């Protein structure tokens, strides 16, 4: 048991750097090997499909529809992306997705900010029950809600409208957005609000001029999350939107899977395009996310 090859260079710094070493880092080779084996096998399961989506999207039709498939592309083409760009029907779905998701984002931020502020800064009877109600509302299966929601929207002539989608998506974002924003507002000291009140600001004015400017990052994170929620939804858009207002997820499903021979490379290219805004949004909000998902316990 010779000292495991740890030949640390003599500490040059006068002050010892407080190194928080993970207990596993001194580890024996066995643990290292196990860690790498896990990464190769499980990480491969995670990343190889991404590689395959990319490869398929960039491969000409003639090479894609061959068996056994070539694992490494020899010809690279952008023709499938070009085909998407020239498809006016898909462009319509894209516009619908953009409109529905953006309006959802704005409405969700407004509604959940008011709600979160009330939960965070005031104490009243029933507050706790309300918070539980918001939290548990995401637990009800959407397929079941649709059984009568469809007729309800129909009764108000809201079927095949953006409104039906925006109202539904906004509601489903409440648990996460309210929780996330409540966490944000909790860190704003009450004394600030009291000071504004003494200065004669109205309750609403306090929210708009004191709280909102202090909560920019939280509001943006909530908005991005709500955007993604609307962007990714499948079942509501499939059921309530009708052909004209359909968003990308059901639109792509109906366009490509409805055909006898699916144009897989084009569908993979479209998949990359649909995923892109979500990835961008995530990169923007990732530092809020881990706390947020624990709190609201919602998944996009």
């Amino acid at each position: 048991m010779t000292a495991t090859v740890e030949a640390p260079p003599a500490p040059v710094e006068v002050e010892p750097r407080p190194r928080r070493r993970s207990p596993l880092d001194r580890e024996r080779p066995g643990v290292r090997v196990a860690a790498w084996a896990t990464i190769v096998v499980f990480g491969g399961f995670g990343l190889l499909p991404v590689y395959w989506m990319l490869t398929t999207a960039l491969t000409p039709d003639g090479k894609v529809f061959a068996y056994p498939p070539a694992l490494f592309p020899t010809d690279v083409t952008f023709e499938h992306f070009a085909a998407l760009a020239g498809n006016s029907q898909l462009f319509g779905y894209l516009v619908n997705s953009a409109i529905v998701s953006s309006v959802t984002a704005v409405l969700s931020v407004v509604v959940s900010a008011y709600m979160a502020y009330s939960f965070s800064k005031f104490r009243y009877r029933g507050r706790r029950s309300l918070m539980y109600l918001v939290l548990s509302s995401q637990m009800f299966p959407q397929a079941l809600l649709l059984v009568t929601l469809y007729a309800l929207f129909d009764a108000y002539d809201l079927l095949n409208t953006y409104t039906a989608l925006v109202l539904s998506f906004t509601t489903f974002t409440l648990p996460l957005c309210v929780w996330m924003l409540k966490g944000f507002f909790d860190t704003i000291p009450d004394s600030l609000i009291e000071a504004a009140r003494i200065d004669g600001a109205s309750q609403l004015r306090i929210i708009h001029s004191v709280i909102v400017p202090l909560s920019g990052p939280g509001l943006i994170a909530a908005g991005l999350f709500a955007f993604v929620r609307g962007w990714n939804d499948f079942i509501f858009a499939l059921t309530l939107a009708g052909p004209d207002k359909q968003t990308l997820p059901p639109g792509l499903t109906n366009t490509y899977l409805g055909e006898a021979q699916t144009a897989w490379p084009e569908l993979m290219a479209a998949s990359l395009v649909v995923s892109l805004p979500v990835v961008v949004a995530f990169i923007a909000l990732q530092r809020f996310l881990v706390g947020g998902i624990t709190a609201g316990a919602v998944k996009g």
Partner: protein
Amino acid sequence: MSTVAPRRGTPGQGLSGGVFAVLLVLPGLALLAAVVLYPLVSSLVTAFFEQSLVAPGRSFVGFDNLAAVLDSDFLPLLRQTLVFTVGTTLVPFVIGFGLALALNTRIRGRGFLRGALLLPWLVPAVVTSFLWMWIFNANYGVANGVLETLGVIDEPEAWLSSPGTAMAAVIIAKTWASFPWMMVMLLAGLQTVPPELHEAAQVDGAGTVRRFRSVTVPHLRGIIGLVVLLELIWNFQHFDTIYVMTGGGPAGTTETFAVAVYDTFYKGHDLGRAGAIGLLWMVLLLVLVVGYLRVVDREEKP
């Protein structure tokens, strides 16, 4: 997990808001009532009526719908839903926990891997479905290509249209979409384990496996309970992946409660039967939700 009920920064009393505080919650409450609460209750109530999506009017039939469902579809639906739910929770848990442990070591490239491995979780559910349909494609799929080259199978398999393999294929697809979230949550949990605990255990002569069992796992018990319960709840009602990939087929072998309720209502136009399946589904789901709320409640108290 202080984020569940962050009280820090706010004195316990709170501000006096009176009517204003209530007004603030009204828009959100109205949405919840219209989009969740009313539809939920009225959908469950239709279980006791004969009612069509396309014709007006309904008639009370008592427990007829429920009896009809219990007589025919219920057991296969329950079995398939449970297989899907447990499969899409346990497999991602094992993969997510394994990766979390591996990425919690100081290996090279872990920052990149942590980010890259989130991609499967980020893509929309329909994209997951498209991708795995293509991978499992009977004629040109890469799954067949690789497995045949490795000699695992002799001839191309129609994974998604064979009753014996469709459920496994759907579970694999959903696993791919689920494991990153579990990985992130467990990794966050692992990073809260105080290194001193491990060091003390090491001094006491505990090996890696022993420390994992006696230090890591007990410390993570709360978060493990939470992620497993939440994933069970989500998967118990999951719709998108199954519906896009197989539509519940072949021969109904991947049909779950979610798909059955949807098809009965939207394609079959039979609201009463959809409500009856939904009612049974809801009762089972409630067990999971109550469990979840209890875990949250316990975690919330310091």
